[in-house]
């Protein structure tokens, strides 16, 4: 289960990069703490990272960089907007993904993680095959087999709903909800000091439509707890009416943690 390391200085960055074996896929996420789509992308990436086992030599390395603090690095990689993902292997940039499409990000990472053979000039020296063997994805499917695409999407959704113990799929973000139901549900979570991950379904139509089918639930917001659907605003309110401690196991009141959604 890989996790994401925060790089906090230029030295840190250079040291990390130089320590990586040439076969490792370096996944660099540029973010800005004030940008809501970055919080969502962080959830997506940590879910993804947890699917990649830590191997020796490491097949993947996951780091995140505050694009504003470390602007030298951002400039070097032409980061003009966040969130921004850069995939590097053996010092070469393989691909970049700008924006918050969870689908594009996952797709790019999976393709390069399973495809350890680099392009043209870099040396392969047999490490490519070893790295590829670890991942069962095989070659990239170029024709769009709809059944396969759907299975893929459902697999991703299955992971996404478990990205955090409490996951809220909403319209907008906690600091800027785009619908009254989502706003109220965010308020309830805040009042109960619940620590949760969120996903803005307005920013990703594939998840928006796919989740309706996956969950067999026609509307948003959707609250998921421990990978299972609880329901929408009306159901959450009913659950709380029946049991005021319904969300207590997920609250952070005890340790005074700071959590998302202060508006």
């Amino acid at each position: 289960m890989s996790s994401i390391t925060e790089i906090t200085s230029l030295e840190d960055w250079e040291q990390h990069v130089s320590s990586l074996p040439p076969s490792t896929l370096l996944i660099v996420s540029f973010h800005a703490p004030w940008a809501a789509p970055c919080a969502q992308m962080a959830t997506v990436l940590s879910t993804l990272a947890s699917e990649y086992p830590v191997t020796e030599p490491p097949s993947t390395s996951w780091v995140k960089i505050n694009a504003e603090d470390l602007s030298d690095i951002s400039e070097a990689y032409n980061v003009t907007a966040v969130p921004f993902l850069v995939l590097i292997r053996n010092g070469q940039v393989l691909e970049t993904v700008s924006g918050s499409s969870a689908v594009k990000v996952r797709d790019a990472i999976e393709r390069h993680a399973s495809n350890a053979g680099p392009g043209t000039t870099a040396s392969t020296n047999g490490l490519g095959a070893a790295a590829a063997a670890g991942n069962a994805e095989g070659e990239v499917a170029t024709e769009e087999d709809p059944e396969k695409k759907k299975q893929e999407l459902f697999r991703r959704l299955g992971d996404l709903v478990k990205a955090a113990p409490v996951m809220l799929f909403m319209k907008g973000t906690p600091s800027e909800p785009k619908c009254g139901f989502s706003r109220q549900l965010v308020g309830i979570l805040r009042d109960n000091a619940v620590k949760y991950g969120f996903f803005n379904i307005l920013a990703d139509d594939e998840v928006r439509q796919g989740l309706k089918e996956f969950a067999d639930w026609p509307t948003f917001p959707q609250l998921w707890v421990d990978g299972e659907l609880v329901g929408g605003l009306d159901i959450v309110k009913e659950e709380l009416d029946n049991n005021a401690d319904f969300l207590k196991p997920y609250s952070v009141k005890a340790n005074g943690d700071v959590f998302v959604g202060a508006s």
Partner: protein
Amino acid sequence: MAQPSISEDSLRAALTERLKATHVEIQDMSGGCGQAFTSLVVSPEFAGKNSLKRHRLVNAALKEEISAIHAWSAKCQTPEEYEKEMAATGGHDKPPLDGTEGGKVAGVSE
């Protein structure tokens, strides 16, 4: 593309017939466009089912209707629960209006 027009009456009728509902209240919260409703559904079929299962029953019964509108809320009670709440609140058991302002859904629907 003519769709069956969704109205409070048609929803009420559908729920009564498909879920053997003994009491149904539908409130339009769309501010006029007829695309957002909240409901109170009382039916013995809800007995022994948790909140999610009850809502799924309603969703299944109104599958086509719900997919045609922008917003849907429901309160699902058994006849006993309904009586109890009416008694406790002096007759104020109503469709939920959470998330709405002045009886209308707040914010963008799409």
